[in-house]
């Protein structure tokens, strides 16, 4: 099987070139299709009102104006909502990373009776529609006085999430057993192995889990919709939807506020692409 090159493949050379060009053509066409809405979003936010309503539509804003940003940000208390969103997101990340790594460590590296059963239950819970637990959790949190606080959006993350635990467990399984064994001989207990060996080796998966949990909190809509009542506590996604239902007929401002919510995620993505895609892919194939 090692002789990869077959003599047959040579005469097709010209045809292959054409095929490559066609593939590129298709890929470029698709890229344009995928990018246009985003381009439209960002340029619309920079157009003057006249150009926004112009027919046929204007593709390049001229002049560029930031007036929609100024006005749009007056309508929603943007700094406040950004601070709320970041508070929730950062604490969720902290909670998820700490709790999920502990649980994943237990599931991957400690051998105890019931471990496999617990892992199976964990996988099974991924199939549970959130709607089933939605009402009782609302009632529970309401009884605890947590409605209209960030607690229902943060605290659960300190108790692990099935997907992140699964991701981390898969990664931990790949850590050579010898390392843990050597540490044990050196007198490390399970906590020491977790803290000194496993965690330092797991930066990639920690980064992936952190990113996904940040993204999840940033994008979450249903949670804030249910639990937050007072606009001072609103998150960006809630604020943006509120803006849409109230000022939706100011397309420029709507696009400006939408851009503000989107761009940080795009920047974050560009900075951490590799981690993102790795996370996505390991989650899929190892299932």
């Amino acid at each position, binding site marked *: 099987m090692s002789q990869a090159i077959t003599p047959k493949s040579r005469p097709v050379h010209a045809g292959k070139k054409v095929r490559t060009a066609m593939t590129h053509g298709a890929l470029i066409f698709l890229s344009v299709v995928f990018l246009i809405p985003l381009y439209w979003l960002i340029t619309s936010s920079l157009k003057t009102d006249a150009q926004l309503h112009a027919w046929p539509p204007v593709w390049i804003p001229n002049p560029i104006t930031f007036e929609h940003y100024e006005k749009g940000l007056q309508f929603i208390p943007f700094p406040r909502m950004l601070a709320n969103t970041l508070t929730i997101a950062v604490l969720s990340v902290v909670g998820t990373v700490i709790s999920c790594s502990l649980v994943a460590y237990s599931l991957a590296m400690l051998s105890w009776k019931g471990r496999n059963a617990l892992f199976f239950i964990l996988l099974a819970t991924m199939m549970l529609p959130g709607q089933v637990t939605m009402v009782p959790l609302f009632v529970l949190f309401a009884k605890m*006085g947590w409605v209209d606080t960030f607690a229902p959006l943060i605290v659960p993350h*300190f108790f692990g999430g099935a997907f992140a635990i699964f991701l981390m467990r898969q990664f931990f399984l790949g850590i050579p057993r010898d390392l843990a064994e050597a540490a044990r001989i050196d007198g490390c207990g399970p906590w020491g192995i977790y803290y000194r060996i496993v965690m330092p080796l797991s930066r990639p998966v920690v980064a992936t889990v952190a990113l996904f949990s940040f993204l999840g909190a940033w994008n979450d809509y249903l949670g804030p919709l249910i639990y937050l009542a007072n606009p001072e506590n609103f998150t960006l996604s809630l604020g943006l939807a509120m803006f849409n239902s109230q000022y939706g007929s100011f397309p420029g401002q709507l696009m400006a506020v939408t851009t503000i919510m989107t761009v940080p995620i795009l920047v974050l993505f560009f900075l951490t692409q590799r981690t993102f895609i790795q996370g996505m892919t390991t989650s899929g194939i190892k299932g």
Partner: protein
Amino acid sequence: MMRSRRISLLLFAISTLVGLLASGCGGKAAAGGPVEIRYWTGWTGHELDAQKELVEEFNRTHPNIRVRLLSVAGSYQKVRIAFAGGSTPDVSSAVWADELAGYAMRGVLRPLDETMARSGRSPEEFVPGVRRMVQYQGKTYALAVTTNTSFIVYNKRIFREAGLDPERPPRTITELDAAAEACTRIGAGGQFLRYGLRPSGLLNWSYVFGGQWYNPKTGEVTANHPGNVAALKWMASYGDRYDVSRMESFEASFGGTSTPNGPFFVGKVAMWQTGEFALEHIRRYAPDLEWGWFPYPVPPGGRPHTTGAGGSVFVIPAATRHPEEAWTFLDWLTRPRAVSQFCRAITNLPPLEAVGKQSEFRKEPLFRFALDLAAGENVFGPPQMPIWPRYVQEIRRAEEHAIFGRRDPQALLDAIDASIERDLQRTLREVQ
């Protein structure tokens, strides 16, 4: 041993953090300082500014109370969540009159009659339409600082161009249909460039046609009242005359009515079903428009000068920790001086009879018209039945299905009648 202790330490740290987070929010008054009252309102923009001014004045003149104003713009559903979660404000004006009976029935609002009497106030101060609206089973649960009316405004220039007399607006349904037809312009491709009117709001039109949704005497749901069916049939007849899917697409291009792109301001529609606030909006967004107004035209045997009433009302949730201070604020805010100042600032109609008689409100011809409309006999507020918000949604659904879905009005309303009646009986049973 050491290790497991560290693990427990970590768990302890997590639970402490969790506890901190949970208790970190929620406003508490500093001991000894003024009592803080949380007041939620649904007003935004310049209306919110006018409300803020009043709140600041109240805070200045009442050193023992500090009212903290919050705008829950556009999300009254949030208020319901706050009620369910027990984290209500002390005073809220972000409650629709529609929702009042449902809240009152469930005991989450403070009845106001006793405190009102102690402060020398009475529901009799309000115009009859508003008085009916804020009471449930003989008790007053809410007060109002504004009220509203519904009528139609029209573009005189378009009327003239269409060959209609701009000084004699339609009085009957037949005249209205003819005017709507005359003003409509359709482009070469069949798309709408402008339409005269597409009647909307079955709720109000049904009253015009002599209909009724709920009989307070018998407690019966009357969704398929012949008047309601006639109204819906007439509304749906616009689907016979026009291409409704084109109409729908055309409407998707309308700007909001509180923006300069509102369809009436830019001439995309010749007639606009609106209320007295139109005055302020037109002045602001289309000052050069030549316009007039007329009450809902009537079919033979219909109810002339019909108007809807509703809007936001002020309530004090039962869960408030400061009922006295909350009432002090609400009392101050609903007295003639504050009501007059607020209504003038946002050009709304005052609900207090005394204020409505003030000359500054009767100066403006549109206001005179609207005030008389509001004081007339055909004022229809939300009926005081507990599942009214759901009923309203069903009515809205029926309207959409009849006009755009071309479904049979009688069948739609029959179905609603049965299902709402069932729901009402069930809800009333539950409460007992």
